[in-house]
């Protein structure tokens, strides 16, 4: 059997850790075991290896030293450190420090690519249009092109008068 980490040397250290009902098994070679501090069982976390190397340090960093608490759900950094789970969607803002470094160890990138809720996309596009028109308006005014400015002002008014796309409320 080859070592789980380096996948080169023969595994001689075999570890089993039971968390709740889940059992995690690891097979390491002597060098990797030493490097991960496996000879000191107290100082060793399987989370390191199961989630990718260095994750638990990142988690520690992400969960910081302060006693920050999410105002929406009451989740603390200690809770996140213990469970590896956030308490609500707001936690992603509250505990944003160090989060990117943690995400980088897990994912392809730290920016979402892919599907987004349609109503939100519509809203975002409208905001972008609004920002663009406002910039054009400022420019028109500074150039004393009042005919264009009046037209832009009307366009902005029209855009602002549109009903907000239905982002439903629970």
């Amino acid at each position, binding site marked *: 059997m080859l070592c789980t980490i380096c996948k080169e040397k023969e595994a001689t250290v075999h570890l089993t850790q039971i968390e709740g009902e889940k059992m995690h098994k690891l097979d390491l070679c002597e060098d990797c075991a030493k490097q991960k501090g496996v000879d000191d069982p107290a100082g060793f976390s399987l989370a390191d290896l199961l989630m990718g190397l260095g994750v638990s340090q990142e988690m520690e960093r992400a969960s910081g030293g302060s006693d920050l608490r999410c105002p929406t759900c009451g989740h603390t950094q200690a809770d996140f450190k213990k*469970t590896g*789970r956030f*308490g609500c969607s707001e936690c992603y803002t509250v505990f944003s420090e160090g989060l990117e470094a943690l995400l980088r160890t897990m994912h392809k990138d730290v920016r979402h690519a892919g*599907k987004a809720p*349609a109503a939100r996309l519509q809203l975002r596009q409208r905001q972008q249009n609004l920002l663009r028109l406002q910039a054009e308006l400022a420019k028109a005014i500074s150039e004393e092109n009042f005919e264009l400015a009046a037209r832009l002002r009307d366009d902005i008014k029209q855009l602002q008068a549109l009903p907000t796309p239905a982002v439903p*409320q*629970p």
Partner: protein
Amino acid sequence: MTIHEFLAPPAEAMHRRGPRDVIVMSSRVRLARNLAGVPFPGSAKKPARLQALQVLRPAVEALPAMADAFSVAMDELSPLDKQILVERHLISREHAARGPGSGLVVNRSETLCVMINEEDHLRMQSILPGLQLRETWATLDAVDTQLERRLDYAFSDQFGYLTACPTNLGTGIRVSAMLHLPGLVLDEQINPIIQSVNKLGLAVRGLYGEGTEALGNVFQVSNQMTLGEAEPAILERLEKVVAQIIEHEENARARLLEKKAKMLFNHIGRAFGILANAHSISSKETMNLLSLMRLGVDLELFEPAARAVADELFLTTQPGHLQQQHSEKLSTEDRDYLRADMLRERLLAVSRPKPRA
């Protein structure tokens, strides 16, 4: 209606056919979604979970795809009901452990299944027999689009769909294929294959997902990363890898037939011998031996009708399904006897495996 009346009988459930289903048992796509500003189930107290359930359950039930669905609160289900749902792969073991404030909605054909208040507010899955990853995604994508009109999803421009565990962040998608790979196991090639699949950023798990054994030589291959890559790209990568694994499995079977036919026939013959003659047998041993019998059917050592028998027994010999056929509470020992009795009886109708000349 009870869950037992709702679910298709095991024979029917196991005979759902799909493309490449000799090796690919099923295709599955799962999406994780949450409500904005509402505590995730893991950190919500019971009243908050019940409140979220009251918002989520009607929205899911109102889906056109959920007409004639089975909808239930998890605390209305007995432990046996839950065990059966796990054995049918309709709910996770985590969800089976949940009670008040969690729910489940399953559509009539058992191809769409929504767990409410599992680790996330919504864990929805689309499941089809054989290799149909694109179809499962298309179905679930449409369902998700309908739901987002009624529910205020937690979504951020940077991080995408927000989930309880940061490992599911972004698309919240898990695409997986359940593969029967006895050839690669017998040919001792499964470990290098698993390692190379892991290197591509995909996970290989056992029959019941995370942290479970590959009972019956069944492996689940799924994407690991969910953030920074769009759904179609994730799907395509998994599709390519699954196609390669299928090819490796086919090659392994061909190689075994050519180079190690004696060993292969010996395994299959002994498996059938034990299944057809044992008087006490565990669930784990049964699954592993039924896997070899199924391989024997694939290799035409049995008559084609034996496939249905093997597939059905794969489900009906599992602990929950076995208990369900008996009114009295069975101990593990009782189950091992009754399982062996059932196997001996059902396999009477199957002729011994005969290697082709």
